[in-house]
C-alpha cells in the first residue's frame, strides 16, 4: 500500500497517546499522592514526601481491619483462580465434542456475563436466605444449634465470583481450541499415548500460555469484584468493598496509600502472569517442533 507514514497516522498516534495518558494519568496521580507528607491533603501540592500514610494503613489506624480484608480477598482470589482454570479447561475440552445442551450451556454462560451483576448478587442472596430458613426449620439439631447463615466467603461469595470469571475462562478456551491443530493429538494417539498422556504431554504444554491468561483473569476479576459480592459475600467484606465504603468516609491520603497497595498487588500478579506467558512461549519455541531441521 502507500509508503511512508501519512498525516492520518500521526493524528491517530497522537489520539492513542492521549488515550493512554487518560487511562494511566489519574492512577499515576494517586500513586504520587499516596506518598504525601503527614500534613498534606487529598490534592496537590505535595506537603513533602513520606511513607506516613502507608504507615497509618499498616497500623490500621481507626479504620476497618484492612489487613484481614486483604487476606480474605487474597484467599478468595486464589481459590477463584484455581477453580476457574480447572473448570474452564474441562469445559473447553468438553465443548470440543458434541453433547446435548451445549448451546444452552454456552448461552447461559454468556447470559451470566451480561445480566447486570446486582441481579445475580440479589438472586444468590435470596437463595441462601431460603436455604438458611430451610436448615433452621428442618435441619438436625447438631446443625441448627448456633446456626446463623450458610452465606460466606467460600460459599455464596465464591459462587458469585465464579459466575463472573468462568464465562471469560470459557471464551478464552474457545479462542484457544478454535486455533488448536487437532492433528497433534491424532499424532500422539497414533504413537500410542493414552488420553491422559495426550493431554499432559501434548495439549497442556501448547495451551499453557493461554491457561496463565485464564488464571490471570480469574484472580484479578475476583480481586477487584464488588457488584456481585455486594449482596452475596456474607458478613465479612472483601478488600475492594471496604475500599468502596471508605471512599465516603476517609478524607486523608490514607485511601490513596490503600489504592497504591492494591494496585501494586494487581501489577505484581499481572507481571508474574505475563512473565509466565513469555517463559512458556519461549519454552515452546525451544522444545517445540523440530520439523524441517533435518536429522540430528
Amino acid at each position: 500500500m502507500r509508503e511512508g507514514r501519512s498525516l492520518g497516522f500521526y493524528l491517530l498516534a497522537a489520539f492513542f497517546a492521549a488515550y493512554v495518558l487518560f487511562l494511566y494519568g489519574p492512577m499515576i496521580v494517586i500513586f504520587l499522592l499516596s506518598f504525601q507528607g503527614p500534613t498534606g491533603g487529598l490534592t496537590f501540592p505535595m506537603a513533602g514526601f513520606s511513607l506516613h500514610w502507608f504507615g497509618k494503613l499498616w497500623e490500621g489506624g481507626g479504620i476497618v481491619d484492612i489487613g484481614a480484608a486483604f487476606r480474605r480477598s487474597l484467599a478468595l482470589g486464589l481459590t477463584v483462580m484455581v477453580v476457574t482454570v480447572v473448570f474452564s479447561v474441562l469445559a473447553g475440552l468438553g465443548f470440543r465434542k458434541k453433547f446435548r445442551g451445549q448451546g444452552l450451556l454456552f448461552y447461559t454462560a454468556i447470559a451470566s456475563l451480561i445480566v447486570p451483576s446486582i441481579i445475580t448478587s440479589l438472586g444468590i442472596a435470596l437463595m441462601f436466605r431460603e436455604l438458611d430458613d430451610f436448615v433452621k426449620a428442618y435441619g438436625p439439631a447438631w446443625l441448627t444449634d448456633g446456626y446463623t447463615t450458610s452465606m460466606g466467603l467460600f460459599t455464596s461469595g465464591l459462587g458469585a465470583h465464579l459466575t463472573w470469571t468462568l464465562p471469560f475462562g470459557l471464551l478464552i478456551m474457545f479462542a484457544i481450541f478454535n486455533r488448536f491443530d487437532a492433528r497433534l493429538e491424532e499424532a500422539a494417539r497414533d504413537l500410542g499415548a493414552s488420553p491422559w498422556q495426550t493431554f499432559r504431554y501434548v495439549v497442556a504444554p501448547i495451551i499453557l500460555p493461554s491457561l496463565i491468561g485464564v488464571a490471570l483473569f480469574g484472580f484479578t476479576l475476583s480481586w477487584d469484584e464488588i457488584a456481585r459480592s455486594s449482596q452475596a459475600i456474607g458478613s465479612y467484606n472483601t478488600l475492594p468493598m471496604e475500599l468502596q465504603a471508605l471512599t465516603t468516609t476517609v478524607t486523608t491520603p490514607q485511601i490513596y496509600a490503600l489504592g497504591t497497595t492494591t494496585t501494586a498487588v494487581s501489577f505484581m500478579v499481572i507481571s508474574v502472569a505475563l512473565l509466565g506467558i513469555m517463559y512458556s512461549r519461549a519454552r515452546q519455541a525451544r522444545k517445540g517442533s523440530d520439523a524441517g531441521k533435518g536429522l540430528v
Partner: protein
Amino acid sequence: MTTTDSIPTPRNPAAAAIASDPTLSREDASPLGRVLPGWVQAMPFGLVFLAFFVVPLILVVVVSFFDYNDYETIPSFTTRSYVENFEGCVSQLPDVCTILKTYGSTLKFCFLVWALTLVIGFTIAYFLAFHVRSVTVQMTLALVCTIPFWTSNVIRMISWIPLLGRNGLINQMLVGGHVVSQPVEWLLYSQFSVVLAFVHLFTFFMVIPIFNSMARIDKRLIEAAYDAGANGWQTLWNVIIPLAKPGIVIGSIFVVTIVMGDFITVGVMGGEQVASAGKVIETRLNALQFPPAAANAVLLLVVTLGIITLLTRVVDIRKEL
C-alpha cells in the same frame, strides 16, 4: 512424503470428537480411565451456573411477586411490588413519575457512554489494527490498553478526585490561569464525572472486540478498495465498518449492560446524588425490602435484555470467537 496427504485432518472440533470417540479408542492406562464424554467434562462448569445463576434468577422472579411488611418477606402472590414501582405514573401525568425519570436518566447515561466509548474505542482499535505494522508492537499496545482492566475499578474512580475535585489539579489550573474566578463545581460528583468514569473504565470493552474483528480483515480488501478508487473515508465506511460490525456489537452489548446495571460508579462518582436503575435495587436492598428489590431487578433485566436482543439481531456472537 505423499502419505501425509491421506491422513485425515480434522480441523473442526466435531471431527476431532469423532476421531476421539472412546468406543473407537484402544485400551489405555490413563488415570482418568476412558476418555470422558463432553457433557461430563462440562458438568462442573454447568453446575456452577445452575446453582449460582439459573436458580438465583428464578428466585428473583418468584420473590418479586411476594408480599412484604416492615420486618419480613411474606410468601403470598401479589403484584404489589410492581404496582408500587409505577405508582403515580398515570395519575401524575403530565409529570413524569420517579421510576420513569430514573430509567430515563439511566438510558441517557447508557447512550452517552455508548456513543463515546464507541468512537474512542473504534479509533483506538483502528489505529492498532491498520496503522501499527509490527505484530509485536500491536500486541504490546493492546496489552497497554488492557492492563488497567485488571486493576481495581474503585481505585480508578477515586483517582479522579485529586484531578477533578474543588481544589483539584484542573481547578487549580483554571483559577491560576484566570480562566474562571471560582472553582468549577460540576467536575466531580456530577453527571459529568459519572460519564467520564464510565468512559475511563469501560472503553476497554469496545477496544478489544473491535480490534479482534479488525485484525481478521484481509488487508487485500483494503488494497482492493484503494485500487478501485475509494478514498480513505469510503474505505472506512464501506469496507472496514461493515467487517468490524461483530466487534462493534459485542463491545456495545458489554458497555450497555454494564452501564444499565451499574450502581457503584454512579454511587462513587455521583456522590450518591445521581439516580440509576441499579441504585434503586441497592437502596431497596439496604432497607431489606426484598420483593421490591426483586421487582426492580426483573424490570431492569427486561429492559437490558430488550436492548441486547435488538443488538444481537445484527450478529451471531458464537461465530465471532
